[in-house]
C-alpha cells in the first residue's frame, strides 16, 4: 500500500521531470543546432537570418508536440477508429456493412434508450437552467444569498455515484406497512399517501426520479454562470425600465431574459452534453432495469456483455457523437467569432 503511494508520487516526479526535460532539452537542441554560433554557413548573414526563421517556425511545434500527441492518440484516433468499428463485427475483424446500424434500430433496448435520452434531454437542461436562473435572481437580493448559492452549488463537487447513494437513500422503500426510512416515502406517508417502490414505477416516473439527481447536481452550475451574466446587465437599462413603470415580472421577462439569453443558451448546451453522456447515475441506481436504459449505459453494457461487442458498442457511441455534432459546430463558430474580435 505504501509502496503504491510512493509509486504514484515517484510517477509525478518522473512525469514532471520528463516534461521539463523534454521542453528544456528540445529547446536547447534547437538553439544549439540552428543557433547563430552553430555550425553551417557561419559568417553569412543571409543564412543566419534563414536559420533564425527556421527556428521560429519549428519552436511552436516543439511546444505543441506532446499535447498534440496525447490528443491525437486518446481523442482523434479513437473517433476515426470507433467509426470504422461500427462497420465490423463484434471482434472488429469481419466487415458487416450497415449490419450494426440495422441491428440498433430494430433493437427494443436501443429504441428504449433513444426515447429515454430524449426525455432526459428535454427535462434535465430545462429544469436545471430554470432552477439555476431562479436561484441566481433570488439570491442576488437577499443578504444570505451567498450562503444559499454555496449550498446549492455544493452538489457539483459530488460524484455521480455518491449522488446516487444519497438519492437512493431518499427514495428508499421499506414495504407498505413498515416505518419508512426514505424521506420521500415518509413525506408521502405524512400526507396520507401510500409508500412506493419508486425505482420500479414504470413508465417514465422512475426515469424522472433519476433525472432529478442530475438536476440537483447541475443547477449549481447554471446558477453560477447565469448569476455572473445577470450582474453584467447595465444598471441604466433596468433603471430606465423602472422609470417607465414596468412591473418586476415584465422587467424579468422583457429585459433580463433577452439580455442574458446568449448565456442561457451556453448553459443549456453545456448541460445537454452532460446529459447525452449520462451513465453513472443509471448504472448505480437501476442499471437500466424497469425501462430506464440510456445510450451510454447500453454502450457500457455491450462493451462487456458476453466478452464485449466492439461493433455494437461503437455504433451506440456514434449515436451519442452524432447528437453532439451540432453543438460542436456551434461552439467552434462562436469561438472563431470571438477570435476575430480579439
Amino acid at each position: 500500500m505504501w509502496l503504491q503511494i510512493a509509486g504514484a508520487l515517484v510517477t509525478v516526479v518522473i512525469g514532471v521531470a520528463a516534461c521539463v526535460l523534454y521542453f528544456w532539452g528540445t529547446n536547447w537542441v534547437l538553439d544549439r543546432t540552428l543557433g547563430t554560433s552553430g555550425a553551417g554557413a557561419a559568417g553569412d548573414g543571409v543564412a543566419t537570418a534563414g536559420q533564425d526563421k527556421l527556428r521560429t517556425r519549428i519552436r511552436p511545434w516543439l511546444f505543441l508536440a506532446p499535447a498534440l500527441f496525447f490528443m491525437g492518440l486518446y481523442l482523434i484516433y479513437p473517433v476515426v477508429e470507433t467509426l470504422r468499428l461500427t462497420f465490423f463485427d463484434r471482434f472488429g475483424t469481419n466487415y458487416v456493412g450497415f449490419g450494426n446500424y440495422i441491428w440498433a434500430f430494430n433493437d427494443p433496448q436501443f429504441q428504449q434508450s433513444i426515447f429515454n435520452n430524449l426525455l432526459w434531454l428535454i427535462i434535465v437542461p430545462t429544469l436545471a437552467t430554470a432552477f439555476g436562473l431562479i436561484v441566481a435572481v433570488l439570491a442576488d437580493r437577499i443578504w444570505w444569498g451567498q450562503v444559499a448559492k454555496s449550498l446549492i452549488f455544493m452538489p457539483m463537487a459530488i460524484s455521480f455515484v455518491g449522488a446516487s447513494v444519497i438519492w437512493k437513500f431518499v427514495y428508499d422503500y421499506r414495504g407498505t406497512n413498515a416505518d419508512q426510512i426514505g424521506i420521500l416515502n415518509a413525506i408521502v406517508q405524512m400526507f396520507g399517501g401510500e409508500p412506493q417502490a419508486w425505482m420500479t414505477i414504470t413508465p417514465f416516473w422512475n426515469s424522472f426520479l433519476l433525472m432529478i439527481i442530475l438536476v440537483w447536481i447541475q443547477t449549481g452550475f447554471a446558477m453560477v454562470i447565469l448569476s455572473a451574466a445577470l450582474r453584467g446587465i447595465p444598471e441604466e437599462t433596468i433603471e430606465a425600465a423602472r422609470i417607465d413603470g414596468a412591473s418586476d415580472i415584465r422587467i424579468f421577462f422583457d429585459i433580463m431574459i433577452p439580455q442574458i439569453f446568449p448565456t442561457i443558451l451556453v448553459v443549456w448546451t453545456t448541460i445537454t452534453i452532460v446529459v447525452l453522456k449520462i451513465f453513472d447515475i443509471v448504472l448505480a441506481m437501476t442499471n437500466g432495469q424497469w425501462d430506464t436504459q440510456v445510450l451510454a449505459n447500453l454502450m457500457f453494457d455491450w462493451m462487456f456483455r458476453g466478452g464485449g461487442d466492439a461493433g455494437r458498442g461503437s455504433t451506440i457511441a456514434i449515436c451519442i457523437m452524432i447528437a453532439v455534432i451540432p453543438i460542436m459546430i456551434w461552439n467552434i463558430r462562436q469561438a472563431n467569432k470571438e477570435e476575430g474580435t480579439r
Partner: protein
Amino acid sequence: MTTITSGTAATPRTERSAIASWFAQLTAGKIVAQLALLLLVVVWTVPTAGLLISSVRDKDQLTTSGWWESLVMSEANEAASLPPADTQVEENGQYVIRGSVFPEDEGRTVVRYGTSINNPSEAAAGDTLDLRTGGEITVNADGTFGMVSAAPFEYDRARIFVVAGIPPRFTIENYVEVLTSEGIGRSFINSFTVTVPATVIPILIAAFAAYALAWMSFPFRGLLVALIVGLLVVPLQMSLIPLLRMYNGIAGLTGGASKTYLGIWLAHTGFGLPLAIYLLRNYMASLPKEIMESARMDGASHFQIFTTMVLPLSFPALASFAIFQFLWVWNDLLVATVFLGNNEGQIVLTARLRELLGSRGDNWEILTAGAFVSIFVPLMVFFSLQRYFVRGLLAGSVKGG
C-alpha cells in the same frame, strides 16, 4: 451543515446595484422570495444532510427509524422476564423481589409499563400495579423495579411489558467498519494514486501548448484552436472501445497487464488536455502584451518568457484547471471501470461504492459512511477553493454572442 433561518429584513447595503434596488421596492414579494429561496436551499441540502446524519447513527436504529427522528428519543415496546420466584426475600413480614428491566444499563428509560402484552402502556413509570400472580409491582423510570406481596410469590415464568425510551446513539463505528473491513480505506488510497499524477501531468503539457497557441504565430494556429474547441465536447464514449482494444493489444504484445495505473494516468491526461489548453490559452492570451514585447526586446527567448513570466502569472488559471481535473478524476467512474481492474490494489472509491450498492444494498450504515468518505475530499477541495472553481467555470463555458 448549518441551516439558515429566514430573516425578513434585508440589511442595507452601501453599494446598491440596480437589480438590488429594483427588488428593494418589494415588500410582500421580498418575503415570498426569501421563502422560495429557503425552500430551494432546504430541498438541495436535505439529501446530503440525511446521508451525513445517517452515517453516524447506530446501525440498528438506522434501519428502524428515519434519520430526521434521530435527534429525539425513540420509543420501542419491549418485554422483560421477571426474576424467578425463588429469588424473593422476606423483609418486615413481606415478600420482596428486586431487579431491573434493563440488566445491562444502556441509558434507556421506562416511559410506561404494563403487566399484559396487550397493554404495555397501562401505567406510567413510578406507578404501582397489581400483579396477576398476586402482590404489586412498581417500575421506576430508570428500569429498576420492586415486587411486594404479603404471601410468598409462586410462579414459573412471568413477564412485564414496557415502553422503553431509547436515547439517540451516535457512533463512528460505521466509519471504522467501512475503512477497515469493507475496503473503503484501501480504495481511498487507490483513488489518490490515480488522481494526483492524472492532475499534475496534463497541466504541464497543456501549459506549453497553450502558450504556443496564445503568443506564437505559426500556420494552422486558428485551425488548431478550432480543433481544441471541437474536442472539448467529444464524448468520452467515443474513445473507450478503441483504447481498450489498443491497451489489450499492447498487453498481448509485451505480456504485461492491460489494466495499469500508467494506462489510466495517460488516458486521463489525454481526456483532460482540451479543457486544460482551452482554459490556459484564454487566460494567457489576456495577459498584457507589453510585458511580452519588452521581454522580447531584452532578448529573452520564448522558453524563458514562458517559464519565468507566463507560468507564474497564470497561476489562477492553473489552479482552476487543477481543481477541475482533480474533481473530475476523483469522481470518475467510467474511465476507472474500463481501464482499471476491480482487484483490491486498483479499485477506486467510486467503483467500490458502486459495488457496495450492489452487494450491500440494504446495509445503509455501510453505504452512507462509504459515500461520505468518497465525497469528503471533493467537498473539502470545493469549499476551500470555490473561488478558483467558479472562475474556471466562468472561463470554461464558451461565451455566446
